[in-house]
C-alpha cells in the first residue's frame, strides 16, 4: 500500500528527471506521460483497495489516505495524464517552431513534473500543516510554468499569481494555526494535533470560537487558490498566459487541490459547529463566484480567459454544492469536481491546439474552425457543450444533482437562482465559441502572415471553402483585414506520434465525459458514497 502511495507521487517526476538530464521535448514529454500513466494506474489501485480497507494511516498522520484523498488523487492523476500527453504535442511544436528555447522546454518539463508531484503529495498527507507546505510549494512550481514564455504579459501574470496566491495561502496557514489553538485542549502528542483524522474524531473537544475563525481563514486562504471570488483575480491572467497544457493543470488539478483542503476544514467545522455556519460562508462565496464568473464571461474576447472565468463559475458551483450539503450536495460536488476537471482539461488542450494553429488567443481572430480543422473544432464544440452542462455529458448529471440538493436543503430561491445563472453562462460561453467554430475560413494572404509567424508550418494549407473561389476569396480578404482573422496554418505538429499526442487526450477526455453522463460505473458510485461518508 505505502509503495503504491509513493509511486503515485513519484510517477510524474519521471518527466522532470528526463528533462533535468538534458532530454529534448519529445523524450522528456513521453517520459512524463508514461510516469503520469503509472501514477494514474496506482491511484486506481488505491481507490479499489480503499473500498474494502480502512484508511491508510502512517508516520504520525503525515501520511493519510482515505477514500476522499483517493478520489482526488484519481482526478488529479487523470488530468495530469491528459495534460502530460498534451504537453508532448504543444511543447515539441513550440520547440520545432523556435518559439521556445531548449532551456525553456527543459524548465517546463522539470516544473510540470514537480507541480504534479507536489499536488499529489498534498492529497496524501493527513497533516494540515504539511498540506499547507505542499500547496504553497505547488504554487511556486506552477508560477514558474505561468512565467515560462517570459513575455512581459506572462511575467506580469506570474507575478500576480505568485504574490496573490502566496499571500492567500499564508492566510490559510493562519487558519491552520487557529485550528491548532482550538485543539490545544486535546491530549494528543504534538505531531498528531494537526493530523486530520484525530482532529475529526475529537472534533467535539475543539474550542468553537477559535475553530470558527480557523474555518473562515481557511476558506479565504485556500479559496484564493480555488479561485473563489473576490480572491480570483490572479486566475484569468495565469490561465491565459501559461502554456495551454499548464493552464489545463491549473484549472483542472490545482483548483481542485485547493477545494480538497477546504473540504477537510469543512468536515471538522461541520462536525463541531453544525451545518449553518459553514453553509452560510460557502453559499456566499459560491454564489459570488458564479455571478462574477458569468458576468466576466459575457464580454470576453480572449478564449483562454473565457475558459478561466468558466472555471471560477464552476468552482463557485462546487462551493455552493458543499454549502447545500447533505448526501446529495456532497455527492454532486464530488461528481462535479471530476466532470469539470476532465472537461476543462479537454477545453484548455483544445485552446492550445487552436493557439498553435492561429497564433492568437482572441476569439475574434478565429473563424470557421469546424471546417478548417474538424477534429479540433469538434472537440471545442463538444467540450463547450459538456462544460456548459448540456446532456448527455457528465456535468448535466452533476449539476442536476446539485440543484436537487438545493431544493432539499433550502427553499426554492437559491436553486432557481443557480439555474438562472447557469442559463446566462450557457449563452455567454456558447456565443463566443460558436463564433469561433462557424463562419468562413480566412483567406490566402493571411496564410503568408501566419506562416511568417510560425516557421514550423510547412506544407500547403488545407483547402477551405474560401480558397475555391477567387471572388469569394477577395471578399473574405477584405473582411479579414477588417476583423483581423487569421487563417490556420497547416498542422503544427511534426511526426505522427506528436500529432497523435495532440488529439488523443481530446478524444479520450470527451469519451470519458460521455460515459460519465450516461452511466456512473458502480465502482465510482461506491467511492463517491464512501467520500460522502467521510465528509459527514
Amino acid at each position: 500500500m505505502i509503495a503504491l502511495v509513493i509511486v503515485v507521487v513519484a510517477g510524474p517526476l519521471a518527466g522532470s528527471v528526463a528533462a533535468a538530464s538534458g532530454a529534448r521535448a519529445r523524450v522528456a514529454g513521453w517520459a512524463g506521460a508514461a510516469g503520469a500513466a503509472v501514477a494514474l494506474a496506482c491511484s486506481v489501485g488505491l481507490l479499489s483497495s480503499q473500498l474494502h480497507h480502512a484508511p491508510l494511516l502512517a508516520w504520525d498522520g503525515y501520511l493519510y489516505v482515505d477514500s476522499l484523498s483517493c478520489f482526488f488523487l484519481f482526478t488529479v492523476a487523470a488530468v495530469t495524464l491528459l495534460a502530460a500527453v498534451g504537453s508532448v504535442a504543444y511543447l515539441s511544436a513550440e520547440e520545432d517552431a523556435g518559439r521556445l528555447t531548449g532551456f525553456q522546454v527543459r524548465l517546463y518539463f522539470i516544473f510540470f513534473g514537480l507541480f504534479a508531484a507536489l499536488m499529489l503529495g498534498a492529497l496524501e498527507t493527513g497533516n494540515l500543516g504539511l498540506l499547507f507546505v505542499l500547496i504553497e510549494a505547488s504554487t511556486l512550481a506552477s508560477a514558474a510554468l505561468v512565467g515560462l514564455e517570459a513575455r512581459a504579459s506572462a511575467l506580469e501574470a506570474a507575478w500576480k499569481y505568485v504574490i496573490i496566491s502566496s499571500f492567500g495561502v499564508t492566510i490559510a496557514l493562519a487558519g491552520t494555526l487557529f485550528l491548532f489553538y482550538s485543539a490545544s485542549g486535546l491530549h494528543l502528542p504534538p505531531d498528531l494535533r494537526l493530523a486530520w483524522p484525530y482532529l475529526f474524531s475529537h472534533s467535539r473537544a475543539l474550542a468553537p470560537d477559535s475553530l470558527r475563525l480557523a474555518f473562515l481563514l481557511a476558506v479565504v486562504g485556500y479559496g484564493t487558490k480555488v479561485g473563489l471570488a473576490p480572491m480570483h483575480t490572479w486566475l484569468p491572467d495565469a490561465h491565459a498566459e501559461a502554456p495551454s497544457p499548464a493552464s489545463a493543470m491549473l484549472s483542472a488539478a490545482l483548483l481542485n487541490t485547493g477545494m480538497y483542503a477546504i473540504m477537510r476544514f469543512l468536515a471538522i467545522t461541520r462536525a463541531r459547529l453544525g451545518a449553518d455556519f459553514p453553509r452560510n460562508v460557502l453559499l456566499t462565496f459560491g454564489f459570488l463566484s458564479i455571478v462574477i464568473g458569468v458576468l466576466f464571461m459575457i464580454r470576453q474576447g480572449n478564449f483562454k480567459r473565457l475558459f478561466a472565468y468558466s472555471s471560477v463559475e464552476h468552482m463557485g458551483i462546487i462551493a455552493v454544492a458543499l454549502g447545500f450539503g447533505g448526501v446529495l450536495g456532497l455527492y454532486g460536488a464530488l461528481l462535479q469536481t471530476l466532470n469539470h476537471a476532465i472537461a476543462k482539461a479537454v477545453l484548455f488542450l483544445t485552446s492550445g491546439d487552436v493557439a498553435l494553429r492561429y497564433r492568437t488567443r482572441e476569439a475574434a481572430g478565429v473563424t470557421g474552425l469546424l471546417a478548417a480543422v474538424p477534429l479540433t473544432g469538434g472537440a471545442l464544440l463538444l467540450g463547450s457543450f459538456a462544460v456548459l452542462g448540456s446532456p448527455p455529458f457528465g456535468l448535466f448529471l452533476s449539476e442536476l444533482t446539485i440543484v436537487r440538493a438545493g431544493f432539499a436543503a433550502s427553499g426554492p430561491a437559491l436553486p432557481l437562482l443557480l439555474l438562472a445563472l447557469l442559463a446566462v453562462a450557457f449563452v455567454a460561453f456558447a456565443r463566443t465559441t460558436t463564433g469561433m467554430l462557424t463562419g468562413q475560413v480566412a483567406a490566402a494572404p493571411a496564410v503568408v502572415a501566419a506562416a511568417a509567424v510560425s516557421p514550423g508550418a510547412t506544407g500547403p494549407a488545407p483547402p477551405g471553402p474560401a480558397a475555391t473561389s477567387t471572388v469569394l476569396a477577395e471578399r473574405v480578404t477584405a473582411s479579414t483585414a477588417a476583423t483581423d482573422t487569421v487563417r490556420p496554418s497547416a498542422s503544427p505538429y511534426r511526426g505522427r506520434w506528436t500529432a497523435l499526442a495532440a488529439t488523443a487526450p481530446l478524444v479520450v477526455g470527451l469519451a470519458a465525459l460521455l460515459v460519465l453522463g450516461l452511466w456512473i460505473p458502480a465502482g465510482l458510485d461506491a467511492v463517491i458514497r464512501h467520500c460522502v461518508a467521510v465528509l459527514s
Partner: protein
Amino acid sequence: MQSLSATSATGVLLDLSGVLILLLAFACLGSKLFNRYVAYYGAQSVVLSFAAGVAAYAFHSIELWILAVATLAIKGIGIPVSARRLLVQRLDLKRDAALSTGLSTSLIAGGALTAFAYLVTRPELLPHGVVAAAVVPLSTAVILLGGLAMVVRRHTVAQLIGWLIVENGVFLGAITLVATFPFIVEAGIFLDLVAGVLIMLVFVSGLTRRLASASAADLKELQG
C-alpha cells in the same frame, strides 16, 4: 503542554518581542524608502529569531534552537542582504513613489487594523494554557499590517516585503505554541519561504528588464 504565565520572564520577553515586531511593521508601513523597507524587515526578523531563542531556552527544545538560528541566518541576514544587493542597488531603487494612499492614511488604517486584531482574538477565544497568549493578537495585527502594506504599495519590491512581513506574523503566532507545533511543518514553511523569495526575485528582475520600472501600477496589460 507546558504552560507559562504571562508574568514569567519568558512570557514577558515574548510579549516584548511581539510588541517590537509590531512596531517595526508600523515603521515599514510608514516609510517611503526602499532601503528602509529592507532594513526594517531585517530588524524584525532579528527580533523574531530572538523570540524563538527565548522560547527555545525556556523549553530546552533543540528544534526551536535550529529555527532561531535559521531565522537569524536566512530572514535576518540572507534575505535583507540579497534584497539590497539584487534589487535595491542593482535596480537603483530609492524613493517609492507608487503609493496608492498617503502615509498618514495608511498609518491610521494600520492602527484600525491593529484594534481589529485585538477585537477578533479576544482572550477567551484561546484555550487556557497557551504560552504568552498576548502574542496571538500581536501576530494577527502583524499579518494584517503586512497585507495592508501589500495593498497600499504598488511597487513589486514593496509588495514582496509586505508578503515577508505577513510571513513573519504567522511565524510569530507559531512560536507562541513553542515546543508543540510540529517541527517538520515549520521546516517546510521555511523551505517554501526561501523558494518563494528566490522565484519572486527572478520575476521582479525579469519584469524590471521588460518594463523599465517594476511598479505594479504599470501592470495593466491584463484586465477584464
